[in-house]
């Protein structure tokens, strides 16, 4: 009942939004300003060529064969330009901030260049604020509180039931119900594709990670065992309640470092076919939903079926990315609840197994490529941990290696040339 009401308001706002966008476009054309961000990055990069080709091209323009004294200097230009291009636009840094939108969705938070365009637009934006904060937010908060409260109370009660089978089937229903309430609380409009590939017992479900809400979105459609660290406070209470009725895997902080222990617990869980599939996010951190970063190989070392899932959020209705360095969980949830909605698509991909002669890293990359292809995301080899850590020196050494190989090749040619004189 309430959700239908909300939906009506939502549709009305959508209509206003389309009008507002076209008004802004017209205004931009009048003033000849650029309102839309360019499709590509800041720089028009040439297609990637090998280091050797680039250097040959650079040296080729020197005037005469006596270019030996110039050869190092010319090469510096090349690295210099590459360096400046990296400063202007690199693949990794922009993944850790929210995606920029082509058109404004009436949320000030997604607009980086907020300027006053017209009175009418300001009024509409004001109306939008009223609706979002006055109507949608209180409704959603109430729903969320109800959902979480029910989850905690019911699962605790269920823990007291002696009969294991009854407990199991009831816990499934309770989890599903509470997650559905939470989904309504966020007004998440989810489209599930290929449900025949849904993860089954005794497997591991892997997915790309954008926000903690990913968990609720997936758990809305099936029951999973979650894996995570034990927290304190409200989260800890929810975790303890949940584990009473169904087998989730919570690790103490100290245990997380011990990879063998982690692997053993996961294997044990997977071996028991009555237990639900485990849900894991191999990226290890939240990425802004434009790309998929390196999958950590730990979850792919366990011998079982992997069910990949791709989740793609529609950025027009609200920015789902949790930038943990910018704001905490509570502020993030409030932001989510005061956006228009959370619209996303979930694709269940066909199950994959590790093949003969494939190691964990190759398997992880294969799964990652499949998820990226389905979700329309960029497949990157970079590690999501770069959000907080620095790049290893090994990469710099690799470039140096490449360059010295090129130089040595040139050096040999020059020696030969000298011998001939």
């Amino acid at each position, binding site marked *: 009942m309430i959700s239908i009401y909300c939906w009506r308001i939502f549709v009305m706002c959508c209509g206003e939004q389309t009008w507002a966008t076209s008004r802004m476009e017209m205004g931009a054309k009048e003033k000849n300003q650029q309102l839309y961000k360019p499709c590509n990055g800041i*720089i028009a990069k040439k297609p990637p060529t090998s280091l050797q080709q680039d250097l040959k091209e650079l040296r080729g323009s020197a005037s005469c064969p006596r270019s030996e004294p110039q050869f190092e200097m010319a090469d510096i230009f090349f690295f210099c*330009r590459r360096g400046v291009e990296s400063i202007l636009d690199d693949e990794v840094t922009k993944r850790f901030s929210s995606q920029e939108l082509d058109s404004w969705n009436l949320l000030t938070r997604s607009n980086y260049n907020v300027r006053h365009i017209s009175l009418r637009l300001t009024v509409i934006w004001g109306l939008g604020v009223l609706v979002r904060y006055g109507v949608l937010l209180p409704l959603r908060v109430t729903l969320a509180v109800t959902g979480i409260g029910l989850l905690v109370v019911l699962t605790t009660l269920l823990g007291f039931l002696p009969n294991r089978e009854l407990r199991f089937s009831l816990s499934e229903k309770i989890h599903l119900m509470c997650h559905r309430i939470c989904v309504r609380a966020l007004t998440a409009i989810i489209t599930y594709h290929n449900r025949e590939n849904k993860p089954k017992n005794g497997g591991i479900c892997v997915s790309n990670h954008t926000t903690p809400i990913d968990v609720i979105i997936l758990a809305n459609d099936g029951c999973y065992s979650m894996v995570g660290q034990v927290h304190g406070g409200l989260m800890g209470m929810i975790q303890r309640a949940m584990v009473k009725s169904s087998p989730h895997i919570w690790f103490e902080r100290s245990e997380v470092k011990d990879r063998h222990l982690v692997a053993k617990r996961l294997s044990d869980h997977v071996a028991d076919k009555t237990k639900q599939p485990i849900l894991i996010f191999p990226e290890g951190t939240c990425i802004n939903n434009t790309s998929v970063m390196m999958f950590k190989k730990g979850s792919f070392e366990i011998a079982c079926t992997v069910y990949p899932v791709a989740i793609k959020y529609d950025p027009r209705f609200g920015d789902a990315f949790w930038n943990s360095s910018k704001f905490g969980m509570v502020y993030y949830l409030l932001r989510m609840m005061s956006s228009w909605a959370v619209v996303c698509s979930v694709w269940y991909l066909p199950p994959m197994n590790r093949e003969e002669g494939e190691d964990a890293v190759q398997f992880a990359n294969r799964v990652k490529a499949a998820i990226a292809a389905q979700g329309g995301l960029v497949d990157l080899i970079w590690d999501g941990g770069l959000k907080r850590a620095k790049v290893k020196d090994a990469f710099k050494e690799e470039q140096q290696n490449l360059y010295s190989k090129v130089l040595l090749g040139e050096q040999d040619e020059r020696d030969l040339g000298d011998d001939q004189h």
Partner: protein
Amino acid sequence: MGAFQSSPGQPEYVDLKEKTGFSISQIRVLHTRFKLLGHNGETLKRDHFNSIPDLACNPIRSQIIEAFFDRRNFRQNGEGPVDEIHFEEFLMVMSHFKAPSPRMIEERESVRREKLRFIFNMHDTDDDGTITLEEYRHVIDELLSLTEDLGKDTAKDIADAAMREVASTSMAHMEPDEFFEGITFEHFLKLLKGFEIELKMNVHFSIMDTPTFCK
């Protein structure tokens, strides 16, 4: 949530446009990038540059980063390093990599000089106006790696050979026993005479002035 956020108004951008030659839309995009790199602070420090993974792979990254903090590149006739830079200084350094507009030949010459001056400053780390053998060797060391393929001696040899060539070309008229102090800027210009740096040392900005709609 009531007030609109303020962004630098048009007058500031116009001022920067005069000084650096970038268009307003390019300045706007660069400002967004500046804020992203600096985590929305007012200034950028060396650490911010160090956290770019792509740049970390570059063998001469420390020289490139130093170039951003070198007052000689700010076109204000200053000298010496600074610890942090504002957006204006960032733009100044970036403008060295702009492609020259297809205009008069005199402009191309001055653009060429500027770009070569930038590279010269990158080599000349002690600000004395000459590139000594030591400084040159240092740059080459950074470019090469210390693997089994190329021992430390080989790198030194390559640097020495290159430096000797440079000395012989530029000091052809000097007495044989005179001490070679280093490459001055004028020698540097002469050395790279045939080299079309104004075409090679450019970063192509893909931003256009007219609105482009992407679908």
